[in-house]
């Protein structure tokens, strides 16, 4: 066949595959969300997923937020001290953490921890016939396995981000007051006087969306995995990579949508 036609055929096949993948993902997401809204409900599964996504991710998210706040204070000082704007450090730290770094870094960490675990668990269930077994036991796997994880992702991430926000600000406060010589009271007043409700709310909206994305990509990749241990490994990698990229891409889109001057 003509090499040009071969190339066009290959591009066409790739586009069709990509569209097929997007369609499959959209149907999976819609079915999962429908499962959240319609009975039967599985509160035990939701509780278990909340523990997996939220509680067990708490240490890694907390440490990430704390150190990020500390680094942010140091780096801001380096820059701002060059034009005598050190007083802006508290505002920069709190706005950066609540609007941006809290949700994004928590999202990336939760994706690496809980998203990977989710994909591995569902992938193992798929290749060991446990998902088929659910169907034979009159249980819809989408409602039993996927819907609770989606709901837990949407609930757990904002809660984690609230804690990440507090610890990020605390990290900045500790460095500013203990290392950089700021007056603690002045720093705190400066922090809260420049913080508005929509700064926090926009971060929490992002967190809920990221939580949904992490649970969706973890569930989707695990649910479709095949081919034994290698397939489960590939699904896990794919879940983390796709969720991380989507978090970063959606972060920009959401920032644009929630942008306030």
């Amino acid at each position: 066949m003509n090499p040009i036609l071969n190339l066009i055929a290959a591009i066409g096949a790739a586009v069709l595959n990509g569209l097929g993948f997007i369609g499959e993902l959209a149907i999976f997401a819609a079915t999962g969300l429908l499962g959240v809204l319609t009975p039967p409900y599985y509160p035990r599964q939701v509780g278990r997923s909340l523990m997996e996504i939220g509680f067990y991710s708490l240490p890694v998210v907390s440490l990430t937020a704390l150190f990020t706040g500390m680094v942010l204070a140091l780096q801001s000082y380096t820059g701002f001290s060059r034009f005598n704007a050190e007083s802006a450090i508290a505002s920069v730290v709190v706005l950066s953490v609540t609007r941006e770094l809290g949700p994004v870094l928590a999202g990336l960490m939760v994706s690496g921890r809980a998203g990977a675990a989710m994909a591995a668990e569902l992938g193992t269930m798929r290749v060991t016939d446990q998902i088929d077994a659910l169907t034979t036991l009159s249980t819809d796997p989408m409602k039993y396995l996927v819907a609770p994880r989606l709901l837990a992702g949407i609930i757990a991430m904002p809660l984690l981000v609230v804690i990440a926000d507090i610890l990020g600000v605390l990290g900045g406060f500790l460095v500013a007051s203990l290392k950089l010589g700021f007056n603690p009271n002045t720093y705190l007043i400066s922090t809260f006087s420049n913080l508005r409700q929509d700064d926090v709310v926009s971060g929490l909206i992002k967190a809920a969306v990221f939580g949904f994305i992490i649970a969706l990509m973890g569930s989707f990749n695990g649910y479709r995995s095949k081919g034994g241990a290698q397939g489960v490994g590939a699904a896990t990698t794919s879940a983390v990579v796709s969720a991380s990229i989507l978090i970063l891409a959606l972060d920009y889109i959401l920032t644009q949508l929630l942008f306030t001057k």
Partner: protein
Amino acid sequence: MTPKIKIRGLKKSFGPKTVLDGVDLDVMPGTAMVVIGGSGTGKSVLIKSILGLVTPDAGSIEIDGEDVLTVSRSRAKQRRAQIGMLFQAGALFDSIPVWENVAFGLLAEKKIPRKTARHKSIEILAQVGLDATVADLSPAELSGGMQKRVALARAIASSPKIMFFDEPTTGLDPIMGAVIDGLIVDCVKTLGSTSIAITHDMASAVRIGDTAAMLYNGKITWTGPAATLLTTDNPLVDQFTHGRREGPIRMALRK
């Protein structure tokens, strides 16, 4: 007599590979059918098609005269509730204890209280020779034979009218295999169920089955009493059951 399960012209391909190529099979009520055949010949696909886990490309599957491939989703779910399935590797749910695995179908279908379900599952575990001490263990804490028994307990928990067994003795030593076979026969007879088992284990096939069928090249090539599996003069069955290298069955070692 009308077959409990009637399969006609069942076809299924995965990409270029044709797995089932016009399967015709009748399973009479209250009988135990054993399907034998080489690895990758579509035995599991056949069972999964009847269960609705795989959608065939063509053909019909009737249970009690009703084509299960054309019924509504809710009716298919009702049908599925009357079927028990023992998966090859047990397919027990790792995240919940043994008793909840056994009672899973009861909790899902009949919405009975958890306390009652636990009590019921301990009774069912006793039927497969396991005592109450295993009820609160995780499936991962059990041996392979015990896991198989728990999986069997789960399969019979809702007293199904039809039962499927996918390689019930795989991975078990011969004695444990015979124990599982004995339990399967007892359970099927006690419940009066119709069953289909697929297996490579000829001793197991003879023990479990009333009738047997051989699946080869996507078609049923032989049916007969399970007791004659080892003595039939059908060259395909003879080669397979005696594990002869020479004969009409050619194994594709390389593609």
